[in-house]
């Protein structure tokens, strides 16, 4: 089954890029919420999360489970769903790492932004294969 395109509007994409630059050289992360129309996953809003990884925040991020619960509740209240997660790769390509794969959840879009200082190098979206063996790249449309 081919994946649906992920639509992230200009404003939300700017928000992700601004977050990546602000936290550089550490990783940023957040969730993307919206709805799946059956033809496309439409991001309506992006919510910043705190990177609570204890150390190595330049190459790791972690969203606290309690913050996740709050996000899910907030999305439910707005009749939206969490469509996926964005995070930055400071000075690394916008491709999922082995560590990303180990920690990924099925069905979610993983948007990765490669950032170096004030420069956004690339932003791509990925979907974990159902058997967890790797990723498929998703179309990212504006």
């Amino acid at each position, binding site marked *: 089954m081919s994946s649906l395109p992920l639509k992230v509007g200009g404003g939300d994409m700017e928000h992700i890029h601004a977050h990546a630059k602000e936290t550089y050289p550490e990783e940023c*992360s957040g969730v993307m919420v919206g709805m799946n129309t059956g033809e496309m996953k439409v991001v309506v809003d992006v919510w910043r999360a705190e990177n609570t990884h204890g150390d190595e925040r330049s190459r790791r991020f972690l969203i606290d489970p309690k913050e*996740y619960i709050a996000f899910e509740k907030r999305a439910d209240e707005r009749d939206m769903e969490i469509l996926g*997660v964005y995070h930055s790769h400071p000075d690394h390509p916008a491709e999922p790492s082995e560590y990303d794969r180990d920690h990924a959840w099925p069905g*979610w879009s993983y948007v990765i932004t490669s950032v170096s200082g004030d420069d956004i190098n690339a932003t791509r979206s990925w979907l974990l294969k159902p058997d967890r063996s790797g990723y498929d790249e998703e179309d990212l449309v504006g």
Partner: protein
Amino acid sequence: MATVRIPTPLRQYTAGNSEVDVTGGTAGEALGQLVETHPDLKQHLYTGDGKLRSFVNVYKGDEDIRYLEGQDTSVEENDELSIIPSIAGGC
């Protein structure tokens, strides 16, 4: 019956349900029953050697079972277990 709350990314394996009823006297037994009913969940909750993945958090009410009795935590009628993903990654 106790219930297990399913996070968004795993609802595709529970026919879209956000809650699944289980019986079972311990958290481990309740989760075992859950994956028996919904086998496609298993690889996302457990490692190949049968341990819960480190980024899978299970709460009983508001408490992480790691700080209770882990998989041996008792689950009574009307208790709510929640599977809560730790979202992590890195380059």
